[in-house]
């Protein structure tokens, strides 16, 4: 087994001969991410590899991401829901859908709208969502919860202690967002808020 020197310690890493860039880490990380399926944080990946710092893993992931993009591979490495995830390139979407059979389930206009209110206003009560949309939202919220996109985040400290809703990590994963700050900013917010 070849190793690499780091801080006077031998790091056992197959193929990790070149210190700069941690070349040996890349296939290891690719294997871990393939096996995991779900988004995994650099910290968790580092813990699985043992004796590798999160910072090194983070740098290697970024390198792997660029490499996958540059070499036009089947998979993309994406920062999503607080972690990293291997995903198929969107250009294969049609073929994959045909392969797996069936049409992807689309969210209705009402569901998408309710979801974006919850995403931008969380934690938010049902009454607050309904005031915004001007229509009852109970069944739509139920659907979003069933699909794992929205969760109950607690109760609001006001009379009746109504339930509050928030988005889930699954929401970030489905819409490919690294975190909630990754949501596109709402247009004209300042314009409406100023008066």
């Amino acid at each position, binding site marked *: 087994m070849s190793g690499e020197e780091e801080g006077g310690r031998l790091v056992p890493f197959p193929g990790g001969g070149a210190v700069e860039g941690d070349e040996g880490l890349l296939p290891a990380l690719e294997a871990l991410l*393939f*096996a*995991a*399926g*779900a988004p995994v944080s650099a910290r968790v990946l580092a813990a699985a590899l043992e004796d590798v710092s999160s910072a090194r893993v983070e740098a290697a992931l970024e390198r792997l991401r660029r490499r996958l993009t540059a070499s036009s591979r089947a998979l*993309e490495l*994406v920062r999503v829901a607080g972690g990293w*995830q*291997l*995903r*198929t*390139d*969107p250009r294969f*979407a049609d073929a*994959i859908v045909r392969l*797996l059979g069936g049409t*992807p*389930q*689309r*969210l209705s*206009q*009402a569901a*998408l*709208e309710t*979801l*974006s*209110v919850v*995403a*931008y206003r969380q934690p938010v009560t049902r009454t607050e969502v309904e005031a*915004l*949309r*001007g*229509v*009852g939202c109970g069944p739509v919220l139920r659907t979003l919860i069933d699909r794992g996109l929205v969760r*109950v985040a*607690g*109760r609001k400290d006001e009379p009746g*202690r109504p339930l509050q809703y928030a988005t889930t990590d699954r929401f970030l*994963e*489905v*819409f*490919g967002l690294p975190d909630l700050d990754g*949501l*596109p900013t*709402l*247009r*004209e*917010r300042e314009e*409406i808020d100023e*008066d």
Partner: protein
Amino acid sequence: MDPADAEDTAWTVHTEVFEGPLDLLLYLVRRDGIDLEQFPVSRIAEAYLEYLDRMRVLHLGVAAEYLVMAATLVWLKSLELFQRRPAVLDDEEEAEDPRRALARRLLELQRYREAAERLDAGVQLGREVFVREPGEVDVADRPVASPIDAFGLLDLYYELLEREPAADLVIEVGRRGPDVAGCCRGVLQWLHRRGGEGDLADLLASLPTRAQRVVTFLAVLEMARLQWVDLHQEAHLGPVGVTARVPAWVDLSPITGALQQEAG
């Protein structure tokens, strides 16, 4: 479709389905190219009332909230006709003009609608991109011989209520019963005194009152849901073990936040 065609034929199929009065208003605003910043109340009110008429002609049920909005619009229109500030504004300088308030609601909804469109336009998991199902390892060092079944839990629960008649037959008026959060703390402390794991039946049997057992049972389920404890069962209908996965001093706010109301 143009709703004006509707009166002419009995066969017109009306396909616009509105999600409440705000949705209908937004539709009309867009259809007629109305500037929301200007908010010409009478024009909007007319378009809205005309649309409700069409819906009535078509024998579409008009829900109450549409009528409430119609009343509001007529009121706003009357204010404008009399060139008056609404009386509510005279009382309180701070209050917002109701016309402005309605325009604001529409703009606000419009913003979320656009956000929803942007969200939908992006790449979506299961639609444009695909991932592997998470891999699993056959874990040997965790005592999960068979996943615990709900009936096993239920049996255990009834058995406990049966086996040891509850001692608290005295009715205590005004006494608060055990709460889930308190029981969670109790369970975690009990587990950690035993090196982190114990038998669910022993745990419940150690409690003096039926109320405490019931709430503690719920506390265990709630903690299992939060993955604060693992439930495991070696054999079908065998004893159910509980293993703590968080320290005894864990912050209980996820439980107090969501559950204290029911338990209290």
